[in-house]
């Protein structure tokens, strides 16, 4: 079983994450935690001083964190983006595609199941910020978007 999962090179940030409100209000903090319902765009002016963004999933069915993740990645954030909370093996692939590169689930995950999930689908239909070429790009390698 695995309690922490990282796809980053090197060490993960250990600094405790502060709330969005206390982060934007002040602070020398470099780690911040987004709760569902908080606006990830409030962090955009500060991305260059952030080394860890945690996105909390209190329940797996609340998908707001997927948008939060893509928003900070689309704005150029390259630091650690960690999903925490009710993170299940069946969500890992979608979370990776939205830019998460580390995971701290409330309940430990089965390594073998994570491996199976990550290797289940060879190709994807959508372009996101994860750098994978979508199927339409592979079908049309000669075109501009492809």
């Amino acid at each position, binding site marked *: 079983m695995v309690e922490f999962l990282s796809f980053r090179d090197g060490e993960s940030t250990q600094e405790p994450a502060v709330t969005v409100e206390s982060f934007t209000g002040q602070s020398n903090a470099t780690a911040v935690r987004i709760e*569902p319902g908080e606006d990830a765009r409030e962090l955009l002016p500060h991305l260059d001083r952030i080394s860890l963004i945690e996105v909390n999933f209190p329940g*797996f*069915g*609340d*998908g*707001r964190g*997927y*948008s939060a993740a*893509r928003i900070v990645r*689309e704005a150029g954030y390259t630091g650690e983006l960690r999903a925490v909370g009710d993170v299940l093996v*069946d*969500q890992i*692939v*979608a*979370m990776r*595609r*939205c830019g998460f590169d580390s995971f701290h689930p409330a309940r430990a995950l089965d390594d073998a199941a994570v491996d*199976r999930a990550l290797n*289940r*689908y*060879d*190709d*994807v*239909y*959508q*372009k*996101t*910020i994860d750098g994978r070429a*979508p*199927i*339409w*790009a*592979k*079908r*049309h390698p000669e*075109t*501009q*978007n*492809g």
Partner: protein
Amino acid sequence: MYRYDSYDQAIVDARVEEFRDQTQRRLTGALTEDQFKPLRLMNGLYLQLHAYMLRVAIPYGTLSGKQMRKLGEIAGKYDKGYGHFTTRQNLQYNWIKLADAPDILAELATVEMHAIQTSGNCIRNISSDQYAGVSADEVADPRPWAELLRQWSSFHPEFTYLPRKFKIAVIASDDDRAAMRLHDIGLKLVERDGVVGAEVYAGGGMGRTPMVAPLIRDFIAEDEIISYLEACLRVYNRYGRRDNKYKARIKILVHEIGVEEYKRQVEEEFAHMRELGLNPPVEELARIRAFFAAPAYESGLSDDIDRSNPAFALWVDRQVAAHKAPGYAIVNISLKPIDGIPGDASAEQIGLVADLAEAYSFDELRVTHAQNLVLPHVKKADLYAIWQKLVAAGLAEANLDLITDIIACPGLDYCALANARSIPLAQKIAARFAAAERQAEIGELKLKISGCINACGHHHAGHIGILGVDRRGVENFQLLLGGSGAEDASLGQITGPGFSEDGVVDAIEKVTDIYLAERESGERFLDTYRRIGMKPFKEAIYG
């Protein structure tokens, strides 16, 4: 018709294996029902009152003879010999064993079909016009757009845990046969300055708070449709309500913040997202479009139909629609026999329709949101032969858009959510109005029944709608008048206090009597209702 390439097939095959693995873990007890539930729901598998129900996607309601035959085989092998066609152009099996579900999905995958995202809070099967590609009045075939959206929405990483389910329809004709404006997003293809693009409507839906979707964008071109829809969905995913599942659909968001504010937020997001390279190149839509090229119609065919058999002539007048190619016709096959279950077909009937599609309709057929079937490309010279086969199979009811062409949800006979039984009521109404002359005299009258407030039977959009409720443990039926799911979309109004099952049948009869007495020349029931209003009907029912 679209055909999978190796990419599409690999995804569907991988999904089958994933679900087999999940089901195995459930059967051995490694997964609890609570843990398994979200996984099976993502694959269209519901636990109903008596058994599992599997909902199979029929993308934009188009399928081949081979696919249809497979649906019939599965009905015979794994169900009790029936399939149920739904208001979302899908097919449901009501008597499935969990252990069989992976094998069924594997069989579907052999004919390029699946059950992906037929449930769950994600983007559902894309629906469309059953006359797409064959009606003369469309701007372009909407199905290539629908297929583009099918692929984009499949396993979308950001939009798989939305506040609630999300339904998209694409049409391309001024006649709306897909209830487009009662979808979360509706696209209507239009041509502006020689370029085809889409009008975008958002925030429609039925359920307990029905809404007709307002226009949110006058035109979006094909090379930006994906980034625009991503913007629409992102605003919804971030700001749609999650505190109450009955207020979680996009219609509530659009209503609460107002359409102008929703538009503003979408445009702001779109300004950002259109720069991200999210749109497939136009070559991809062109690739898909090539699959939907018109079949090789014969030229020089006669438009004459031998009408010497009166029963056949009646069926032609009611069930056959104009086709864009000379000598051809569109055949509507009724799944509403008077004593039947709306939308149900037996394994044998499904097999027969598959045969007819192959023999007479360029191997193609359609499913309609009114729970009927369509053979889209039939030579007029073949109509009589087809009719004879339909008669022999019990599929030749001539009631398209008449009062017995009833839309009904499965209701309390099957559904765990229902408050009342829809099917026996549909059968009672059909029996009351069974006489062909009487139905013809009443003319177009769309009657729709839902067994609970979730409105799967589209009761809000019925010229006459019926909503089953539970009143202190007794089934009770509310009556609504004046709804429409067509291009003149409107929501029905409740007449007043509800009725017993027999009482509502009597009330409908009074309503149609008032219509027949009050109508002016050429008026449908809906037109008369709109002209004279609720009052005379109410007086007749309750007076």
